[in-house]
């Protein structure tokens, strides 16, 4: 009888522990993966255009966009006689934002804005996660507003940057795609 009670108590205790663990796990904050990996400064730039001119959203701050090799593996397809860019899932573009239009050599950026191609992520807008990194603590947060995509949607139309996308190609929300317009070779 005593053993039976003990077994029952053990079973109830075990189930309670599992339930509690599940509850705690469900309450735990969702951790976002770090997309701008420590080696990102070695990634290639998406353009050799000097981005020191003012643009809405980043003012006149100096910017350097870099993309991982997954992104550089993308090639445009043709749709309705026009090139169409669809970056593969896993593409990461990190844009370093500096304090001034002409940062000193070795000066650290003040902010990173990151595009991650993740079309299956429910937080994705236009197939991309729009992320900012808080540099002091290294945390990356997905931006849930539509501010980023609203501006970047203009990359698929005529715009005033780089080659200006005169043929209104679909460039997958990226202003500088590899090629002549970006003054960069693969």
């Amino acid at each position: 009888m005593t053993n039976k009670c003990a077994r029952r108590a053990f079973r109830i205790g075990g189930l309670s522990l599992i339930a509690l663990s599940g509850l705690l796990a469900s309450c735990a904050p969702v951790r976002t993966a770090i997309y701008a990996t420590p080696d990102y400064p070695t990634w290639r730039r998406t353009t050799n255009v000097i981005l020191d001119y003012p643009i809405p959203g980043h003012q006149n701050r100096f910017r350097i966009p870099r993309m991982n090799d997954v992104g550089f593996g993308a090639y445009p397809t043709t749709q309705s006689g026009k090139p169409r860019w669809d970056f593969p899932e896993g593409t990461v573009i990190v844009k370093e934002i500096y304090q001034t239009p002409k940062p000193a050599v070795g000066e650290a950026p003040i902010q990173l804005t990151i595009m991650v191609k993740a079309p299956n992520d429910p937080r994705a807008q236009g197939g991309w996660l729009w992320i900012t990194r808080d540099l002091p603590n290294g945390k990356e947060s997905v931006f849930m507003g539509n501010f980023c995509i609203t501006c970047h949607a203009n990359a698929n139309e005529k715009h005033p940057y780089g080659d200006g996308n005169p043929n209104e190609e679909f460039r997958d929300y990226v202003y500088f795609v590899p090629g002549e317009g970006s003054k960069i070779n693969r």
Partner: protein
Amino acid sequence: MGEGRRSFSLTFKVNLILVTALAVGIGAIMVAFAVSLVAFRNQLTIQSLMRQGDDHFVAIETLMISGNAPEAVGYFTKVNLTNAATTITLYRRDGTRAFSDNSTIEKVNQNLGLKRFQVKDRPPPPGMAMPTPRFAEAAGLPPQEFFFRDDVGSALTGGKAYFRTYRPLINLPKCTVCHGADHTVRGVIDIRSDVTEVVRAQAFSIGGAGAGFFAMVAILALVIGSFLRRVVLRPVQSIGKVCVQVTSGNFDGKVDLKSNDEIGVLARTVNTMVGGLHERFELTKYVSAGTIGAITAGQEPRRVVRTLLFTDVRGFTSYTEQHGPEQVVSVLNRILEKQSEIIQGCGGDIDKFVGDEILAVFSGDKAQSRACTAALRMVRLCAESVEEFEHLTVGVGIATGSVIHGMVGSMRRADFTVIGDSVNLASRLCGMAKGMQIIVCDAIHAEVGSEFQFKGPFSVRVKGKIEAQRVWLLTGKASGRSP
């Protein structure tokens, strides 16, 4: 501790529980339902207004981006004029009204380096006067959308209730050609929807439902209270009243209840019980306490030590020959009544009346002493009541010893009485005693000799005994003791 507590009636308690259960249980469900209904209605209103806001925003943004600002102005001017509940206002990022002057046209012309747009002399379009403090956040970096409630006073007391949305217009790269790239937000579209009537209707429906609920609870409380009073409380009070009457010796009361429910069954049971109690009470007048006790405790015969007191009225036979039956019965009853009172007063139990004789049984502590005291009181009573007892007196015989206590008789009629040598001896001593004499056996004298005055011993022969018996004449209490 319990005496100080206030007592509430059963009806009050049951009513309180029911009404509380109604108010708390159904009330909580109603409140939850009302809250969810209000939330759902709010959600619908908000979704509807947000969709309207989206539509307006897309329309205005499309017109503005394509450089057709005048058409955009015309659009929301028309909306403001045709839809009294909706007001659309466009603010520049610095909070001033768009199209209120020509500064934007001049700036665009300057950026383009040509006079593409003509300055105009026109009044500002209708719309809101001033933006709220949230405007700064909407036009800040990053620009944010806001959807919020912006009431002016209370909608229930003549004020206005509004839902309001701030939608920032981003200075898109393609806009920078005309407007410059030195800012992120072109302006903020403010869409304000008047929901005063919705809020009032909601408050009215909630207030009406709440009032209806409380009215229903009050009516139910009255109905249930009245029902409980009629069905439970009054019958219970009636039963209680009968019980109180029985406690005070009045067995005439009956619970007058015709219902066949549990209370009715209880009432009939109480009536039956009261009838039974009445019968038993009446029976105690005719049956000895020993018999009743035996019925209660069991009817098995047992051998016990008892003190037996016999009394007999002297000269009664000749009295009956000289007087009528009513007078005989009357005087006999007076004598027996007074003797009974004395016996019971001394803790004796009248076993039976046999004509003018009484057999009383004394048991327990100081049984012999109490029997002697009773006998002395009877003799003194006779001395004091010569006229009342019409010169009739009693002779008393007392004996003590082992007797058999048990049911004696047939299956149809039996007495629970005492039998044995001591009973016979007491009867014989009573037979020997003359009027006003008390004869006791030697065992009595041995037990209470110091408490009473005796004369004797006398040696007497009694029927059924071979040897002569030592007996004593009880004459009074020992000096210093009162009978």
